[in-house]
């Protein structure tokens, strides 16, 4: 008995330590970001930093509004493209898909989730960039290209979460709707899908998180010009791209300004997590 209780205590400490690693990581990242980023914001001026329209490190002008807008535009575009396709695919997989097609389709979507983002970038570079250039003009490295590629990239996230929430809706909802004379389609879209609403929203918000944090694929196809976004077919630089492009050679205030860019990104992710928490809370009520 005694040896068992010692063993339990030891294991208790081991588990606690494991949990602490996770918390420590988050705390350390927060401390590092804030300690290095916030003073830079002070030096540049919070207003000048967040709302400045010009980013010219050579002249010590650090305004990241172009990058904030760039991230928001690209993410919004990815949502516009990815969400409808993702939800429709999830509905198809949960309610329409013949058994024979399901396994390969599910496999393909899981594979899509596992492809490294640099490979997505290559795909964009070789296929989407030339397509956009030939169809709509411009150089092809543009907001539109980034939206399309990110739209693809967030599909597995949205499909996975939506499908499982659709499957969690009791079959009786569907039968009750059918028994009122509704068609298969109407029963699914007006009754089953709204019942799964919170799950669908969770999928969308996770997709937003994925899109806003994506770096490598975006750098390869978005053009990365640090200027205010001028149009769908013009190049754009996102917050993530800004950090990666310049971190290698930046020093002093420039370097700190890039870390401050990371702080802004961090705040975005924090907001997204708050949204998720709010959705979950809404479900419990």
């Amino acid at each position, binding site marked *: 008995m005694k040896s068992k209780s010692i063993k339990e205590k030891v294991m208790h400490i081991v588990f606690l330590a494991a949990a602490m690693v996770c918390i420590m990581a988050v705390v350390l990242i927060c401390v590092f970001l804030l300690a290095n980023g916030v003073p830079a914001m002070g030096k540049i001026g919070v207003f000048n930093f967040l709302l400045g329209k010009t980013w010219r490190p050579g002249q010590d002008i650090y305004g990241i509004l172009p990058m904030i807008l760039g991230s928001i535009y690209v993410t919004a575009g990815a949502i516009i493209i990815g969400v409808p396709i993702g939800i429709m695919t999830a509905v198809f997989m949960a309610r329409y898909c013949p058994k024979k097609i399901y396994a390969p389709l599910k496999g393909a979507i899981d594979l899509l989730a596992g492809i490294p983002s640099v490979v997505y970038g290559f795909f964009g570079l070789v296929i989407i960039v030339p397509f956009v250039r030939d169809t709509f003009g411009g150089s092809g490295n543009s907001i539109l290209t980034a939206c399309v590629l990110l739209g693809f990239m967030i599909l597995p996230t949205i499909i996975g979460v939506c499908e499982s929430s659709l499957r969690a809706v009791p079959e009786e909802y569907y*039968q*009750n*709707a059918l*028994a009122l*004379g509704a068609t298969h389609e109407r029963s699914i879209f007006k009754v089953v899908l*709204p019942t799964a609403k919170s799950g669908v929203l969770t999928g969308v918000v996770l997709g937003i998180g994925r899109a806003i944090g994506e770096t490598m694929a975006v750098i390869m196809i978005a053009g990365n010009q640090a200027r205010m976004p001028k149009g769908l077919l013009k190049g754009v630089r996102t917050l993530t791209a800004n950090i990666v492009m310049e971190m290698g050679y930046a020093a002093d205030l420039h370097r700190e300004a890039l870390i401050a860019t990371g702080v802004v990104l961090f705040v975005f992710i924090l907001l997204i997590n708050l949204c998720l928490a709010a959705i979950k809370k809404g479900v419990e009520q």
Partner: protein
Amino acid sequence: MIKFELKDLEVFYGDFQALKGIDMKIPANEITAFIGPSGCGKTTFLKCLNRMNDLVEGCRVYGQVTLDGEDIYNDYDVNLLRKRVGMVFQKPLPFKMSIYDNIAFGPRTHGIRSKSALDEIVEQSLTQATLWDEVKDRLNMDALSFSGGQQQRICIARALAVRPEVLLMDEPTSALDPISTGKIEEVVMELKKKYSIVIVTHNMQQAVRISDKTAFFLLGEVIEFGDTEKLFSVPKDKRTEEYITGRFG
């Protein structure tokens, strides 16, 4: 007047034969009750009347089912059938939306868009389900926030809002307390003036209280079918007598 006429109805689930050649005439504007032990085919029979059995994988239906003389299994629009033949399930299951939208779902499905027409249908249906006075100030509240008995009456109102001719009820009170059950029974008695009602029940007193005709099912066959009063007082078949006196089941 005859509403449904069934000839030699046989239903299989895979290799299992759930109904074995049933002939029955279900009268209009009366309450027909189905009694019998669990697994005897009552619910299967009920689901043949609005073709909900179509959803069950491996289910095959043979024989003829006619509604007002039309064969509902032969080139008949199943959505129209389910509009004419409404159904109330065992478990009350309002959709996750307001009461108003729950009741209006059916009429909207069948193309009614005007707000005033929908308002009228909602009020009428809720009144028929004796729920209007209880909920008229709370029509925008989530239907799931009401009690089980109220939810079941919401489901009845939702089925009535489609303006069906027949109402199928699959043990509609088995999940409810005696007071809610009493209310639902009152609703059903009132409804028979306008609708033909078929009700599956495990509660024999309920069958006696509300139904005009009763069918006794056993192992996929109809043992006896006739006026409720006669069936319960002078059953013709020995097995019926044994069941209603509680000797098995």
